[in-house]
């Protein structure tokens, strides 16, 4: 079965705002599609039917009485289950948070509601966002809507699959090393990691705080821009939130790429499968045909990104996840002493990949190894950032693949962590530097499965990155 076509979020919002459709009918349709199709996909961990319909009715009353229901009025949205929803389960795909109901709400969730969007459910994910296939969820894997024997990518695989399957037009995920862009590529949808600090992380359960960033999934570049506009901007609750004003993203989206200097980045093409690399070259031709000047560029430092990331992210995770101690929230496995209780709780509550990352990070930060591993990885992070900086003196954006291959088979990489980690090789550099990057669907591979191409830009240049993405979307092979 090929996924059902989804009406665009902006189209739905326009229909609800004009009174042509009720928010209730839009939300009921989304919930109906989930009920019908999600048994096979398992994109959602749970739906929030009652709250969603109540909010829809409230919004419909606002429309009838002439109020402004917001730019995303009535649009169903799915949330990755690491975004806090007050009083509603937020599990991070982990047994250790299986029954946790947060006492507060993530800033992005409040902003979605302010924009009129309606949260219809929480999506599956690799436990604590650690993984590239959504197979590390305590609650079982998600399947790729294009081929149920394949993974959807990860860690935001549930959000990507929910949009790809036509259950919702929009979803939010989080991207620490590619966890929005890689599943977007594997599921054939648009996924964007904004500049670090553009979207508040308040209420995002922390994995690696210097790398984590929330971002949109959508079926179109314009919808992704609209969603980012709705959730972005300064938040005093997040001290790393950027003070820079969120520039308009929708206005000017169709301004084209004439004169844009595009660097096709060898390090993001050469090591990918031949069918993926061919699509990147084809995408470069599309940009060139629309007036961009396209050149090949090599940024060799990017090759060290993977090693640096798999030291830095586990190091930060080992510290962040120390909070799961069985005391204040989540699972507790009782024992006689507090240390034995902490150990029994964490041993039972975390899955194998989370344990691997915690131990790797603990090792990299421990006495005698700190400088050789963590210190060295931070210096490599400087190298990667400076190399991007030099590339952006010559180019306005860089182009590459999002993932080295199309969606792989369930189980193919679960036994070999290093093979799984290599799925992130093209996405990790932008997390290290904090720069924006987007994955746009661009045709299929030899196996008929979606390929994503990636547009990367310098910090806070979301409008430019989105503009190039819009041209690629329009020129993508059908």
């Amino acid at each position, binding site marked *: 079965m090929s996924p059902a076509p989804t009406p665009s979020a902006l189209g739905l919002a326009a229909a609800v705002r004009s009174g042509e459709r009720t928010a209730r009918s839009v939300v009921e349709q989304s919930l109906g599609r989930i009920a019908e199709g999600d048994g096979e996909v398992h994109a959602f961990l749970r739906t929030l039917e009652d709250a969603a319909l109540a909010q829809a009715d409230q919004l419909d009353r606002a429309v009838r009485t002439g109020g402004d229901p917001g730019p995303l009025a009535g649009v169903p949205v799915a949330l990755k289950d690491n975004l806090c929803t007050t009083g509603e389960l937020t599990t991070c795909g982990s047994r250790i948070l299986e029954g*946790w*109901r*947060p*006492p*507060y709400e993530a800033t992005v969730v409040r902003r979605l509601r302010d924009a009129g969007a309606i949260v219809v459910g929480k999506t599956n994910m690799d436990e604590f966002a650690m993984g590239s296939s959504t197979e590390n969820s305590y609650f079982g894997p998600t399947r790729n809507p294009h081929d149920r024997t394949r993974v959807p990518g990860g860690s935001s695989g549930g959000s990507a699959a929910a949009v790809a399957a036509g259950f919702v037009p929009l979803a939010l995920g989080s991207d620490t090393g590619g966890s929005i862009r890689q599943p977007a590529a594997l599921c054939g949808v648009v996924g964007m990691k904004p500049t*670090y*600090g553009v979207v508040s992380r308040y209420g995002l359960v922390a994995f690696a705080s*210097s790398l984590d960033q929330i971002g949109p999934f959508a079926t179109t570049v314009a919808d992704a821009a609209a969603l980012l506009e709705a959730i972005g901007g300064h938040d*005093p609750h997040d*001290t*790393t939130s*950027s003070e820079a004003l969120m520039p308009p993203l929708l206005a000017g989206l169709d301004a084209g790429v004439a004169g844009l200097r595009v660097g096709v980045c060898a390090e993001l093409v050469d090591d990918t499968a031949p069918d993926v690399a061919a699509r990147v070259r084809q995408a470069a031709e599309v940009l060139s045909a629309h007036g961009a000047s396209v050149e090949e560029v090599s940024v060799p430092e990017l*090759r*060290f990104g*993977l*090693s640096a990331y*798999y*030291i830095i992210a586990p190091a930060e995770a080992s510290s962040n996840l120390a909070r799961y*101690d*069985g*005391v*204040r*929230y*989540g699972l*507790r496995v009782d*024992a*006689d*002493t*507090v*240390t*034995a*209780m*902490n*150990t*029994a709780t*964490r*041993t039972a509550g*975390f899955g*194998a990949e989370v*344990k*691997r990352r915690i*131990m*790797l990070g*603990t*090792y990299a930060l421990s006495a005698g190894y700190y400088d*050789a*591993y963590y210190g*060295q*990885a931070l*210096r*490599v*992070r*400087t*190298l990667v*950032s400076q190399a991007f900086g030099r590339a952006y003196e010559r180019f306005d954006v860089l182009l590459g693949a999002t993932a080295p291959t199309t969606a792989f088979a369930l189980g193919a990489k679960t036994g070999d*962590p*290093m093979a799984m*980690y290599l799925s992130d090789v093209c996405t990790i550099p932008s997390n*290290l530097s*904090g720069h924006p990057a987007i994955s746009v669907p661009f045709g299929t591979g030899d196996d008929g499965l979606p390929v994503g191409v990636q547009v990367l830009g310098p910090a806070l240049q979301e409008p430019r990155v989105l503009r190039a993405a819009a041209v690629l979307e329009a020129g993508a092979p059908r």
Partner: protein
Amino acid sequence: MSGLSRDDVAHVARLARLALTEEELDQFTVQLASVLDHASDIEALDLLGVEPMAHPLEIANVLRPDEPHPSLDRAAVLAAAPAVQDDRFRVPRIASNPA
């Protein structure tokens, strides 16, 4: 080669409050060593004089005005706790009795 030993893994597991079976210890030693071996490409780089980058933003000590405002509701916070007594988190004993 990273030279990561089974004893090293047992040590970090203890530091991280994780109990491993003998089988897990064998498996994690191999898997963690393979990640550290991959990282030998950056271990070999001469980066003396390169400043470490802990964060993408150059910010320090972000302060807010010192004005009182409501914090999370105590009852709502305690409702999420595994065990509570007298408006506090309840834990098993943290010290053993003197011999």
